[in-house]
């Protein structure tokens, strides 16, 4: 493995803390991983490079200082462990999505579902789908947890669909059964 990396280190004025938080959130959203308490790392591609460049413009406009590098590891083991760090973080986020999807499936199985809770369940489903899309975009090293999260979400979609679609048919079927 010979991964080209992008490194970012920055300093911001102590106040406002809102700004510090915004930058931190942005980096997390990009899927950047922080090493040694202050160096942010992303694997290099056209998009990640652009992301770091715009972010550094924002930081500088707000009175901060930024250093950006493109770098290659001298030791292969370093690449492997960095990639593992990315994978671990993706893995955790996929696991959270899988848990949330399973919870939702359980809620959907609890019948009967009132119209108000149907709306709520659909809303949560949309959020999960969006979450999964984001996760896939920042899954730089193909974390295996993606499969689990996707299948949990699929199950959840099916459960919700089964409880919400064509309630008339459901009732009829039950009536016939009795």
């Amino acid at each position, binding site marked *: 493995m010979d991964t080209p990396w992008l490194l970012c280190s920055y300093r911001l004025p102590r106040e406002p803390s809102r700004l510090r938080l915004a930058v931190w959130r942005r980096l997390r959203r990009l899927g950047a991983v922080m090493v040694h308490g202050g160096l942010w790392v992303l694997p290099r591609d*056209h*998009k990640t*490079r652009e992301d770091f460049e715009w972010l550094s413009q924002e930081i500088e406009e707000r009175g901060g200082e930024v250093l950006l590098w493109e770098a290659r590891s001298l030791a292969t083991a370093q690449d492997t462990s960095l990639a593992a760090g990315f994978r671990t973080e993706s893995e955790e986020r996929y696991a959270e999505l899988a848990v949330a999807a399973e919870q939702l499936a359980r809620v959907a199985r609890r019948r009967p579902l009132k119209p108000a809770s149907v709306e709520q369940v659909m809303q949560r489903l949309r959020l999960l789908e969006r979450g999964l899309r984001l996760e896939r*975009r920042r899954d730089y090293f193909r974390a295996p947890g993606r499969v689990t999260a996707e299948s949990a979400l699929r199950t959840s979609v099916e459960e919700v669909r089964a409880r919400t679609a064509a309630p008339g048919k459901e009732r009829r079927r039950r009536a016939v059964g009795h």
Partner: protein
Amino acid sequence: MLWVTRPNCHVDRTACAWAIRRFVDRDAAFGFAPDLEGARALGGTPFDLLGAELGHHEGRCSFESLLRAYRLDDPALRELAEVVHEADVDDDRFHTLEASGLDAVIRGLGMVVKDDLELFLVTHRLYDGLYAWFSRTAT
């Protein structure tokens, strides 16, 4: 006319290049420079460069700034702008399904097409296609 941007283009810049050539300047030539100063030295109009008018402003990506600056406006372009915005800025402002796909395709093309001018040629047809797709209801 010469238009200048940074090298290693992704969604926003490839989309800008497409819109420039298709709607603004049919004979557009493209050059690359790391910053605004470099663009001026080349004597071109800068886009998607830090500090350029055709850049990121008030939450807009460069493609949106370009459409605005040249008053390019139709429903299909607006839809395309949402996709480009989401693929580029990724701030959940629009929930366009095509954005993740476009991001993946252009990122991947960036890995195999090393030359930005060639990347523009390849993505040109791609944006033609997306634009045609978004225009279909209007025809």
